[in-house]
């Protein structure tokens, strides 16, 4: 963070006024862009939060700020006496997301290393196969998969949710990591090996730090993809294993046909929080990767 404040200061001490103006102009352009991006990303979210805090009797009110304030929607979301399993579902989604991310990344790093670094036959076929896995309409996979999982008694189990999710994130993790691994300065790995490291050590100590931005980015993408998954979860889970997306889809109004918009928006607001925290943690890692790269 300190480096962030340092840099403009360094620039403004540049001797020429023209350069100073240019730097100022550049930095204000950055800020204008940043503000625009903030608005674009957060304005619809703002409306979600406003609705989340609104009394259900005023659901369709269009006052642009919070009116008829209430916490009820959050209470409703967590209320198990109404048959909502949102609290449990949050834990389930976190658990499933973490397992999927860790395994998906592990397998992804393995495969990507092989694809980027090793010579073997049929590489093109392997890549095609992995990519092909994200080409079939997901909706058509569910039916056969449901039959399979029913036959082996997996319906309602965690692995029935985790394993499909791993397979959904694998193509992306393998491809991203492969493309980044190709750009790594592998000469460093070679020299580390000459210095006495094993290939594994060289990979861990030299390459991984450099690849950190890519790895953490991929981790975030994988986690969110699992976090957002609905199709598989809605069919394969039960009350104990259901994920947040299913829990939210199960919210009901007090009457049939009534859309519980306010409770859905409250749940949507809550769902974002763990993700934002995670990104705030991981984005430090992205910066760390950057500086490690610069040190090289």
């Amino acid at each position, binding site marked *: 963070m300190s480096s962030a404040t340092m840099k403009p200061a360094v620039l403004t001490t540049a001797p020429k006024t023209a350069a100073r103006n240019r730097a100022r102009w550049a930095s204000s352009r950055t800020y204008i862009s940043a503000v625009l991006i903030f608005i674009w990303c957060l304005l619809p979210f703002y409306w979600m939060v406003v609705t989340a805090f609104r*009394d259900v*009797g*005023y*659901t*369709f*009110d269009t006052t642009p700020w919070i009116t*008829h304030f209430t916490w009820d929607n959050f209470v409703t979301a967590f209320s198990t*006496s*109404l*048959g909502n399993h949102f609290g449990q579902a949050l834990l389930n989604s976190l658990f499933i997301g973490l397992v999927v991310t860790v395994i998906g990344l592990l397998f992804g790093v393995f495969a990507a290393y092989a694809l980027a670094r090793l010579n073997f036959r049929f590489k093109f076929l392997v890549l095609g196969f992995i990519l092909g896995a994200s080409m079939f309409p997901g909706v058509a996979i*569910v*039916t*056969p998969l*449901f*039959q*399979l999982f*029913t*036959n*082996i*008694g*997996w*319906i309602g*189990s965690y*692995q029935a949710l985790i*394993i499909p999710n791993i397979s959904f994130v694998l193509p992306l993790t393998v491809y991203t990591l492969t493309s980044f691994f190709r750009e790594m300065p592998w000469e460093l790995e070679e020299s580390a090996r000459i210095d006495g490291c094993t290939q594994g050590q060289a990979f861990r100590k030299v390459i991984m730090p450099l690849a950190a931005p890519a790895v953490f980015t991929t981790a975030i993408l994988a986690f969110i993809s699992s976090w957002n998954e609905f199709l598989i979860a*809605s*069919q394969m889970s*039960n*009350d104990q294993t259901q994920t947040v997306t*299913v829990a939210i*889809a*199960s*919210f*009901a*109004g*007090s*009457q*049939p*046909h*009534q*859309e*519980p918009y306010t409770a859905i928006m409250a749940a949507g607001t809550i769902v974002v929080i763990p993700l934002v925290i995670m990104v705030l943690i991981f984005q430090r890692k992205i910066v760390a990767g950057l500086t490690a790269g610069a040190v090289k």
Partner: protein
Amino acid sequence: MRNSKRLAPLAALSVLALALAACGGGGGTSTAPGGGDAANNLTDRGPITYVQGKDNNNVWRPLIDKWNAAHANEQVTFKEQTTSADQQHDDLVQNFQAKNVNYDVASVDVIWTAEFAAKGWLQPLKDQMAIDTSKMLPATVKSATYQDTLYAAPQASDGGMLYYRKDLVPNPPKTWDEMMSMCSVAKANNIGCYAGQFAKYEGLTVNAAEAINSAGGTILGKDGKPSLGTPEAKAGLQNLVTAYKDGNIPKEAITFKEEDSRTAFESGQLLFLRNWPYIYSLLKTDGASAVKDTFAIAPLPGKDGPGASSLGGHNMAVSVYSKHKATALDFVKYVTSAEQQTFFATQATLAPVLTSLYDDPALIAKLPYLPVLKTSIENAVPRPVTPFYPAVTKAIQDNAYAAIKGDKSVDQALTDMGGAISSAAQ
């Protein structure tokens, strides 16, 4: 059981090989009618699971608790699906296809009953599985009957009603034409006149079917073939098309589902609204409601008298794959008993299926709309009872929507509708 689940990857691979060889997935092949699974386990008792969509009013849990307290060896487990009707349908299909023995009793929307029955998934309720339907509303029984056999027990009904502004229109219209003539009142007050649910979804099928049936037409004939070539059917759809074109139905109504139309009426933007009974209490209590004391209800307007509402609601069906059908049947009888139906009506504002309850003064005191709803359901026509319902409703929605928007003529729309329904049934 739990331990075996842990042997995840190994089991998966070995089963993968087997399953690939057997290739037993997906198709929805049926069982033989009457025989096979439908003849098994008729007298067996034991724990069962009851499956339905989300319990909006929190009535099922207390009801099931009460049952469980009295039936120690025949416990009922409650499995709630999501709120979306489509997802409930798909979930039931998946589990019936997979012959899941744990879906013993399921709540089946009236429009799915024929489809599931024809697939051989529902236990025929005859002989030793028979239930007494003599006290139930005839329309609800019809919706649960396929090929003259009862496949489910009517459990909750629903019918459309006309909500109107009694401060602007003291006497509600009895016929469609009368209602249209009252639209000048709406114009004078600068509000929309009439709306139903005209977005392209199941609600449009409900509304289009009401228009056609109210004008004396039918969508499917007795032989299950489309019967849309009649002047009555044309007049029915024409009513909606003309009203939309004239502005008597406001233009935004083609984006309306139940909730959008309720919002419009609630904020005082509509003179007449066709909707289900569920909005009655919301109109009375919602903070944002501007019509709390100025709305009233009436039967839907028809050609010469009350119109033909489309029938909503759910039936309770026993799965042919259930291992404890005797218990399942008892549970169905318990839920459809007068006592529980009264409980549903008072706690959940679900329309009862027993005729007698609509005349119960104590109940009417609590639910003032019951007499109107009774007229509605007595005149109600089930949406087409056909095993091809998903295709039939699509044919109705697509073509009625195009006609209302003015994209094609009423004649063309009805011809296309008939053609699409015919090809679906092949």
